[in-house]
């Protein structure tokens, strides 16, 4: 519904943009330079290392495809992939509805909502490592929250049972990032013209109908943006999981990023670690592209359909 009418205005605008582009293209230079130096060059280094044997200390020897063969045949890899996607999907499924609802709620102009918005924002201000250490202390089965409050159901082996540990990771990740995504949704909701809601009320639509028929469709691109950030971001969850569970118990929460770190910096196998790094880049790129496709042409603004 938005795609058809949007085609014409987009074409029109590109022409005007093209006319001015000669003078502004240089503005991309600093960003591009930084991207090349800190993004592309290390990436090329990692790609080369994935075909080499290096323990981080001695000299680097070429190893051909042996790293790729050993990593791809390692049963740990499908497991790490599975855990990565498990955390990605579950944390998305938890964060999206809550952030959406909170964002809609916070978009209201009442003063108490502004106050709550500030409070909700607090977890985002804390560093992941600090959050992880705090949760680890709170979840200690013998000296933590359960023991302190004398609530037996809180005194579980939170980080020692595979399923519980995974749940804890998803909970803490959501707790940390929901404020950020709420903020995105809040901004998105405030962009929706009030006239649409007025028209809907005149037509007799109640709050719930307005939410599903106006708010959610109007937030389509906001949802895609937020989901892209969540999905691609979840590939890089490292600090939090590393401090909270260190990938354990066993390998229950060993996501790809952690697997890479453990191979590279704990087992001193930089070659295989680089293979995983390359895989991470490929998966991240693939997912970002996929989400762009799902959202149609993202150059079209969501206001275009109005």
């Amino acid at each position, binding site marked *: 519904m938005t795609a058809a009418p949007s085609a014409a205005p987009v074409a029109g605008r590109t022409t005007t943009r093209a006319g001015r582009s000669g003078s502004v293209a240089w503005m991309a*230079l600093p960003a*591009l330079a930084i991207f090349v130096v800190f993004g592309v060059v290390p990436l090329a280094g990692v790609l080369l290392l994935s075909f080499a044997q290096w323990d981080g200390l001695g000299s680097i020897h070429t190893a051909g495809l042996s790293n790729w063969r050993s990593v791809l045949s390692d049963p740990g890899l499908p497991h790490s992939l599975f855990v990565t996607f498990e955390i990605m999907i579950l944390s998305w499924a938890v964060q999206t509805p809550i952030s959406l609802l909170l964002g809609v709620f916070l978009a209201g102009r009442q003063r108490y909502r502004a106050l709550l918005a500030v409070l909700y924002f607090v977890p985002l201000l804390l560093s992941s490592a600090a959050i992880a250490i705090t949760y680890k202390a709170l979840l200690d089965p013998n000296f933590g929250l359960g023991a302190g409050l004398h609530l037996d159901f809180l005194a579980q*082996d939170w980080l020692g049972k595979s399923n519980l540990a995974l749940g804890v990771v998803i909970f803490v990740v959501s707790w940390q990032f929901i404020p950020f995504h709420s903020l995105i949704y809040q901004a998105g909701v405030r962009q929706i013209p009030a006239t649409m809601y007025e028209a809907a009320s005149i037509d007799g639509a109640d709050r719930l109908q307005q939410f599903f028929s106006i708010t959610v469709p109007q937030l389509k691109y906001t949802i895609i943006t937020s989901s892209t950030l969540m999905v691609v971001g979840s590939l890089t969850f490292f600090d939090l999981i590393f401090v909270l*569970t260190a990938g354990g118990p066993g390998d229950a929460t060993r996501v790809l990023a952690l697997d890479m770190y453990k191979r590279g910096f*704990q087992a001193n196998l930089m070659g295989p670690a680089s293979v995983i790094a390359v895989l991470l880049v490929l998966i991240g790129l693939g997912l970002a592209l996929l989400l762009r496709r799902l959202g149609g042409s993202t150059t079209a603004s969501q206001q275009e359909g109005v």
Partner: protein
Amino acid sequence: MMTSRRNFLRLTAGSAAMAAGLAACGSSGPKSTPGSTTGGATGTGATYWFLTGQPQQAIREAQVKRFNDANSGTQLKTTEFQNDAFKQKIKTAIGAGQGPTLIWGWGGGGLKSYVDANQVEDLTSWFDQNAELKNSIFPSAFGAATVGGKIYAMPVETTTPIVLFYNKTAFEKIGAEPPKSWGDILDLVPKFNDKGIAPFSLGGQSRWTNMMWLEFLFDRIGGSEVFQNIFDGKPNSWSDPSALKALEEMQKLIKANGFIKGFSSITADSNADQALLFTGKAAMMVHGAWTYGNMKTSGGKFVTDGHLGYMNFPPVDGGKGDPSDTVGNPGQYLSISSKASQADKDVAKKFLSTSTLDDASVDAWVKSGNIPVVKSAKDKLSSVTDTNDAEWLKFVYDTSANARNFAQSWDQALSPAAAEALLDNIAKLFQLSISPQQFADSMNGVIGK
């Protein structure tokens, strides 16, 4: 659309050249320092990185202060790290040529990887010149400092065997005696559980804590040869019948609820495992001798009122191991970076010979409840006035000195790659998610790596 893409291409072509220039600048920094000029991260004198954690930290700080006060011209700069952070930081720093002049470590496999990469100085001839210093140190401490017949590190600090600690009050509550054999341990488990006391405390999330159990069971059941074969790289040595038996016994204890509920969520870094023992929530704990100091300071009157008991790990009925054997850290080790300047190396050597095992250091170690790696430690024991400390120190000294075999901790003895695989599999074994056979199979795969 077309225009902007062309613009983009023009732009990338231009910036590629610029990026190449930038990249050259970026990489020239670390590359321009091969060998001679810089030893430490700063390149302005000798540096020394070591671990935080009391009482060791204060003793190390005092050693450096004494050295710097006595040698105003050559100052030693220090940086302190938390244990696990240090293990990773030091490897990365050395690999990047940014390591300290004095490299603190546990010897064994980690030291060997530095030696293989030519990162540490051969100290054999230096020790020959300083025979008196060499002879003052426990001979058993040199094993983990020696690679291919050459000494690459000086044993410093303390000898810390792993021992079985117990809470005497907990034993009084169930009216039982401390275990004299593995069978006794298994018998005690239900008795403690019935009284709501966990038989054993364990900081299982740290993984090496679990490993200490296997070190003892392997030794007591099959003798010290079992791990020696693994260390020597003999194929399939993890599936030695004694090894499999030890792994089975381990899982038997776990299945019988021998460890505190939720042990996989507990870390050793926070000392929560020690707290479980001194608060009486757990009756026993297998842990390093280094925990004594903290239990004394943090445990209220637990140590001072004599509630802490300790013993060497008991024998396993029918086992081949010598009950006097112990495992743990025969010492801590200081190596000198081969990439340091000659002046920095000389400062580091002077520090090693004058300030690490001098009288003041030995005194301080003994006072903190540790046995330093020098033979003279025995003479100091009589000067300890605190009866608890005196008894403890005598026990540690006897355990170390009388051990027929003092095996190094596995994760330190093996190469980093094999150690990581080991810790990983141990965590799974303790979770009961793999069987002893699966453990042996996957560990056999990393032998000699």
